[in-house]
């Protein structure tokens, strides 16, 4: 076996990847060839030096984080029911409060508006109360009389 072929097979020889007969040939060649033996040593030192390549331990929780992120968010059935019930209760309370304050039925506060109007414009009482036309005339009349003075 020549050096060129021996050297080509050195890595495979050290990795025990050669068939028996080929490995034996390399072994015999190395016993009588100093340069190939030196190269083999150099290659194995390089291989050993790679142990110094920086490496880190993974974050202890990285795999857990990955697995948790992969899962769809779990909402327990009881919690889901509680959320739905709370929403319904809030909706009911909201609608009751709205109804009580009259926002749902604007006509329900008409008496209060009439009382307010009569207190501001007492003259309107005699001229028919809620009639818009009379109301506007009264306002303009009042403005005219004030201006004439």
């Amino acid at each position, binding site marked *: 076996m020549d050096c060129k072929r021996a050297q080509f097979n050195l890595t495979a020889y050290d990795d025990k*990847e050669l068939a028996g007969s080929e490995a034996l040939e390399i072994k015999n060649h190395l016993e009588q060839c100093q340069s190939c033996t*030196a*190269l083999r040593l150099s290659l194995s*030192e390089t291989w050993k030096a790679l142990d110094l390549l920086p490496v880190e331990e993974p974050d202890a929780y990285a795999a857990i984080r990955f697995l948790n992120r992969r899962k769809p968010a779990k909402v327990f059935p009881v919690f889901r029911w509680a959320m739905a019930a709370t929403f319904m209760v809030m909706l009911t309370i909201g609608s009751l409060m709205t109804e009580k304050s009259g926002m749902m039925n604007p006509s329900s506060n008409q008496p209060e508006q009439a009382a307010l109007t009569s207190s501001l414009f007492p003259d309107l009482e005699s001229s028919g109360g809620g009639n818009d036309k009379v109301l506007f005339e009264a306002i303009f009349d009042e403005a005219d009389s004030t201006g004439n003075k």
Partner: protein
Amino acid sequence: MDNAEQLLRQFKEGDEHAFEEFVKGLWKPIFQLAYRFTGSSHEAEDLCQETFMKVYQNAKTFRGESKAFTWVYRIASNVCLNWKRKKIPEPAPPDIMPHERHDFLMKLELQEVFNKLSAPERMLVLLSKFYGFSYQEIGDILSISPEKVKSRLHEAKVKLTKELPEFFKKGGGVNGLQESTV
């Protein structure tokens, strides 16, 4: 990981817990493969996640023509090599304490020499050196023949030996190397 086949089979049958065990068992070696390849723990974690996401998505179609173990490494290798193709800038070296400087600089120099190898060569070296895969298994992972593994690995080793500063080795026998390997 001896029970990788079994866990993957159980997962294919619908056992999600088996997938969790599978991930927990392989997270560290895949992370460290990605770390040595990229030199960054942040990138390594991202690549690790991408690897296992692909495992999760493709496990149902895994036909078992190769070992589950080598299948995962194939995915991880592809993820790493694709990352390299995206041309992401090298991470900045971390801050170091003065007493760590010598050790750190040695490692940095070694990393620089290692990074001179092409991305496939680096992957080849990592799979052989740190995971003890046979040439046949590395061939399965990287989709090349065992003969190709043999020649490429030897070439990578010779390149490293030529580039590596002398203080990493004592022999210096690389000078006797015959030009152009077979």
